[in-house]
């Protein structure tokens, strides 16, 4: 047994590999194959020129026997810069994502707090209830919201039969419906990190605050909230980041003027069949997104340092 291990270890050692390097290599290879290489392919297409062919763009590198020509085309990026459509769509997406994440935080925090403070059997039950919706398809759940929100849907029909309104309120195909869809879908991503954080909250700190004359409200703002900051930021990021690029929810619930960056990308790729510009949008989005994400990351790091 030990002999065998020594043999493997020395064999690996001869290759310059330690067990530790192997463990690290797995996620590295994963990132390389499923993130970096696709990213480079998209970056490559973003620098080429559109044409009618299969695939619909010109090659970057031309080779005519002896001479290799590298054609880099930066026009796609210039185009994004010159047409305000792309900037506006990006800003609107960030706004929708920010408002949704804030709403999810306002709704999710009390829920996470309640779950974390619940006694054991009930706590597990409540946590399961949060995760349970994932067992059905996300698409089906968004479609279900169409049934609730449409003019002759559940909500309007109930309100009309109760005599609260006379004519149905138009809710589907509005930004309002998009917010509902995003907050509903991403709420568990807010609750779970918040719960993980709040469950570790030390009761003695709350008692100490009370002993020193802090009323519940003051205790919450001066003790609980600062301590749960890492959870808040983690939850916020888990909602904010995917919501920016969200395509399905605005497509199914939003109106035609809900112009999020995901839709712009779809347009470039499918309607204009301009893969280079579509790739440029994707790369530009990634680069521009890094800014708010880095800001949140550093806020999180600071919050953790403080503890």
């Amino acid at each position: 047994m030990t002999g065998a291990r020594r043999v493997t270890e020395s064999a690996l050692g001869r290759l310059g590999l330690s067990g530790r390097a192997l463990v690290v290599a797995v996620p590295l290879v994963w990132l390389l194959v499923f993130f970096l290489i696709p990213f480079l392919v998209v970056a490559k297409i973003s620098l080429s020129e559109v044409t009618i062919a299969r695939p619909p763009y010109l090659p970057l590198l031309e080779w005519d026997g002896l001479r290799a020509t590298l054609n880099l085309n930066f026009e796609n990026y210039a185009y994004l810069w010159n047409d305000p459509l792309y900037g506006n769509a990006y800003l609107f997406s960030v706004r929708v994502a920010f408002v949704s994440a804030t709403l999810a935080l306002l709704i999710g925090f009390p829920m996470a707090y309640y779950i974390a403070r619940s006694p054991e059997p009930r706590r597990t039950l409540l946590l399961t209830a949060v995760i349970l919706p994932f067992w059905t398809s996300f698409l089906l759940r968004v479609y279900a919201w169409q049934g609730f929100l449409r003019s002759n849907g559940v909500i309007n029909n109930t309100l009309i039969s109760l005599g609260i309104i006379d004519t149905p309120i138009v809710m589907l195909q509005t930004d309002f419906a998009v917010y509902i869809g995003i907050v509903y879908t991403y709420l568990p991503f807010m609750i779970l990190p918040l719960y993980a954080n709040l469950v570790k909250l030390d009761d003695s700190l709350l008692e100490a605050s009370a002993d020193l004359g802090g009323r519940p409200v003051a205790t919450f703002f001066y003790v609980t909230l600062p301590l749960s900051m890492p959870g808040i930021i983690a939850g916020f990021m888990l909602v904010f980041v995917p919501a920016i690029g969200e395509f399905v929810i605005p497509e199914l619930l939003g109106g035609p003027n809900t112009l999020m960056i995901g839709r712009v990308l779809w347009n470039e790729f499918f309607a204009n069949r301009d893969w280079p510009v579509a790739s440029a949008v994707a790369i530009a989005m990634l680069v521009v997104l890094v800014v708010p994400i880095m800001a949140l990351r550093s806020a999180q790091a600071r919050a953790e340092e403080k503890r």
Partner: protein
Amino acid sequence: MKKLAILSLSASVLALPALAQQQVVNVYNWSDYIAEDTIAKFEAETGIRVVYDVYDSNEVLEARLLAGSSGYDVVVPTSQYLARQIAAGVYQPLNKDLLPNLANMDEELMQAAAAYDPGNEHSVIYMWGTTGIGYNVDAVRERLGEDAPTDSWSMIFDPANAEKLADCGITMLDAPPDIMQTAMAYLGLDPLSQEESDLEQAAALLEQIRPYIRYIHSSQYITDLANGEVCVSIGYSGDVFIAADRAESAGTGVEIDYSVPVEGAMQWFDMMAIPADAPNPEAAHAFINFIMKPEITADITNYVYYANANAASMELVEEEIRNDPAIFPTPEVQAKLFPTITRDARAERTLTRLWTRVRTGQ
């Protein structure tokens, strides 16, 4: 023993392609676009197994075809997409020796389709139709009176009418060429114009009525017209008939009608074609030839309410459908129909950009 079983299993897996008794044909067609028993009949007659898959937009189909190795043997793109895809080298020429049923096709319509596919080298018409107005008869009458202009685009494109209809819901297809060309026809411009100023005028017209449009989507309106959620849609003929049929069978009292307006409407063809890299081109030809059988095409038309281009099938098409001018337009209306054109990348971009402005106000 176990090892042996595994060995022989893997051997048989390896040998499968060589021994394949059962041929397969991979068909990629529009959703809700074939009779219920067509595939079963084809399988029974030829012994070829059909793998049937559906899409609901030309864009999705095109992206797959342009990426290559789609794995499909028969696809059904709409004419103007087909023309561009042919230029991109997506399709293989048809082997007409394998398609004796081509003799059943209507010559005039095949001629019209040759505008997109010169000599009909790569494709055969599956079904064709128009882009017109689907409307809820009672809701429109209630708002625009007994003499509502249901046979004119002014019902939607005149802001005064659109405003009155806004509360019951107007929708448009998310199909820039269809809507923009239609708007140009309404304005008395050449619907095939590629002039930027003409396109600008069409966009300006659409922007005027944009506040009264509930949504812009290419399939949602089928359900919504049927259950009274919306009342006027610029839509594809066959889809509106599906909505009318659904409304009738649901018995909700909603009556849906379709009109091809007098100013003219877009005529399009959905064409069967075989990708250049189709894995089973022979089975694909067999499938296309089977569809062109008069009784099979008639079955499909009777089921989906789209017009076919199969002259020999006409006597098998239900009389009610055959004589419906909304499905098979009268010669006078037919003369007013206009095709779509293939635009170069630049004109295409102008069109999409203007359309985005109409959609979003940006």
